[in-house]
């Protein structure tokens, strides 16, 4: 049995919508079978107005036990540090965040906005948005680099835009069933069980990556080829389980012919979507990808590429994902 208070700051609610897609456990299972108590949620909570405010005040003062404080969306500090661009229950939301984070055993940031600032923090960041404990890759964010919750943990980051339902439900179940000790976090405070692999791990196009055969014609079904060489796929550089734990039980971006945008990494959206950076691999001298897979060295990568291309079988140059 664990109690969760879930609030939203500069949010779109995409992580909530993703969460509602959960299966095994689904949202109802979580509550009925795993005994999760949803204290309040902006999309699901029954209470409105003063009734809801009483809940927040009781949690903030410690009068009501709150095991897990979940925050979705950025912490908005604008204008000028006042936080008035995000008012909630008669106060700036950021003021609620300070008090509630101090009372919870565990604080969880769900989605890129709460983890690193996300889309609202794109230049020029009109709302002065930031993440709970990071601003992009820099540790700090709203609560500061040294913040720890009552259970002695930093903010647990479950990034993504949105986060996958399993990343959310399985961490909540682990917390709720006392398996906090099984969760190991990487240096960006992401649970390693999800974020040590790459988007590329399990991608159906990885054989085309292996033989350096590029998709040449974007959107024509991408019936063949890898999206890394021309279309800006960040699969080899992005930590996610998207090709291990499928989306909506069906697919993933790269399986559907769409490049990975690297949304679980703090720099998302990459290059700030400057002109010419979208759906387009950034290259040196028009030929060599500027970024190669995490951990690779440029020169050995080029040597491996040349050899791989020579070794490429005929089928790797033909359509594979056919009707």
């Amino acid at each position, binding site marked *: 049995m664990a109690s969760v208070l879930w609030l*939203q700051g500069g949010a*779109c609610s*995409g*992580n909530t919508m*993703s969460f*509602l897609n959960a*299966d095994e456990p*689904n*949202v*109802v299972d979580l*509550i*009925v079978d795993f005994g999760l108590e949803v204290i309040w949620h*902006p*999309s*699901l909570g029954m*209470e*409105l*107005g003063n009734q*809801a405010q009483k809940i927040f005040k009781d949690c903030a003062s410690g009068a009501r036990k709150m095991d897990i404080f979940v925050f979705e969306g950025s912490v*908005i500090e604008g*204008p000028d540090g*006042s936080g*008035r*661009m*995000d*008012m*909630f*229950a008669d106060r700036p*939301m950021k003021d609620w965040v300070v008090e509630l984070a101090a009372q919870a055993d565990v604080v969880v940031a769900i989605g890129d906005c709460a983890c690193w600032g*996300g*889309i*609202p923090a794109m230049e*020029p960041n*009109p*709302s002065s*948005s930031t993440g709970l404990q990071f601003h992009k890759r820099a540790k700090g964010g709203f609560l500061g680099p040294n913040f720890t919750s009552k259970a002695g943990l930093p903010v647990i980051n479950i990034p993504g835009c*949105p986060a996958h339902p399993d990343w959310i439900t399985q961490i909540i179940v682990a917390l709720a069933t006392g398996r906090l000790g099984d969760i190991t976090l990487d240096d960006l405070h992401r649970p390693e069980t999800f974020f040590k692999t790459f988007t590329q791990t399990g991608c159906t196009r990885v054989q085309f990556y292996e033989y350096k055969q590029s998709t040449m014609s974007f*959107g*024509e079904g*991408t019936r063949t080829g890898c999206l890394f060489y021309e279309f800006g796929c960040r699969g080899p550089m992005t930590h996610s389980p998207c090709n291990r734990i499928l*989306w*909506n*039980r*069906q*697919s*993933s*971006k790269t*399986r*559907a012919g*769409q490049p990975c945008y690297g949304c679980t990494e703090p720099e998302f*959206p990459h290059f*700030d*979507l*400057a*002109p010419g*950076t*979208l759906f387009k691999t950034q290259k040196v001298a028009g030929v060599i990808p500027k970024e190669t897979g995490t951990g690779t060295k440029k020169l050995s990568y080029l040597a491996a590429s040349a050899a791989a291309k020579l070794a490429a079988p005929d089928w790797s140059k033909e359509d594979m*994902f*056919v*009707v």
Partner: protein
Amino acid sequence: MTSMDLHVSPLGRVEGDLDVRVTIEDGVVTSAWTEAAMFRGFEIILRGKDPQAGLIVCPRICGICGGSHLYKSAYALDTAWKTTMPSNATLVRNIAQACETIQSIPRYFYALFAIDLVNKNYAKSKLYDEAVRRFAPYVGTSYQKGVVLSQKPVEVYAIFGGQWPHSSFMVPGGVMGAATLSDVTRSIAILENFKDNWLESDFLGCSIDRWLANKTWEDVLAWVDENESQYNSDLGFFIRYSLDIGLDKYGKGVGNYISTGTYFDPSLYRNPTIEGRNAALIGRGGIYAEGNWYEFDQANVREDVTHSFYEGSRPLHPFEGETIPIDPEKAKKQGKYSWASRRATRSRGWVTCRWRPARWPAGWRPPARTRHRTRTTIRCSSTSSTRSGRRC
């Protein structure tokens, strides 16, 4: 005369950040103000970025309807760049968008809306216990089934677009992926299953065709009583319960509706243009106001920030729009009260309802080609008109 001011902050379950202020005199609401409480500034963020940036950024306006922002962003680029759309791409875009819309029906109805029906203030109704059994949050029988099954239609979105929410698979000139045989057959099976195991079995209690045969409110009332299956479906029960607790007697909107229409006939929109849009629509748009129907013309739309937390007080066409936010504390002294702006059509200055029910009266004309389309129309005799959130 007794007068009371009520400030509801927050008004939850609107997929947005909303406060509501009402003045109640002698038991009647005499004024109501909806105040959007949060600002991120998408119009400002998109400036200077890659023209296609909207495909990534705009879905993040909203999590439940992000796909509709992708859909419109893609068509905006198609229009600006004069692309040619292959037929299949138009069909895939239509299907994906329809699946997002279908998902939101049970999700919104049970998780966000119907739990209000178990408010203790309705306990005097003979149907109250049944309402609690079906709609109570988290434990209601219809709630549980409907919320869990709402994930099914967007499995089809993921088959074509990789994932839902927040795919960017619609690009200028079409879509990124092309279906294979199993994609198509699996999609059909998922939607058939959804129809058989929730939509027709639990929600309607009849076939979609039978429901669509209802053309008037009187038809709907007769439909409720027609047989036990319809009488006791969630929709049949909802209609009976709403009438019993008086939801048909208050909260009526202004009676004017606007819809821009959606879904395109692939043969009529190969080259998307502004001028050609209305004629190519399968789901018609339009304006229903003061008892008459009018064509929707984007040139007549104006955005008015006089009462919003932005500089400016002239109605502007969105192409000329300005987004200069002001500190709410300062802005309130100028009589501004919300981050949301007001949109109207210029020629008549009507206030219109752009919320979900507007699609039905505003678009009630034959589609571009007469074809069978799957659509549920929910005539919600809903609560107050302040239920519409910032994003809808």
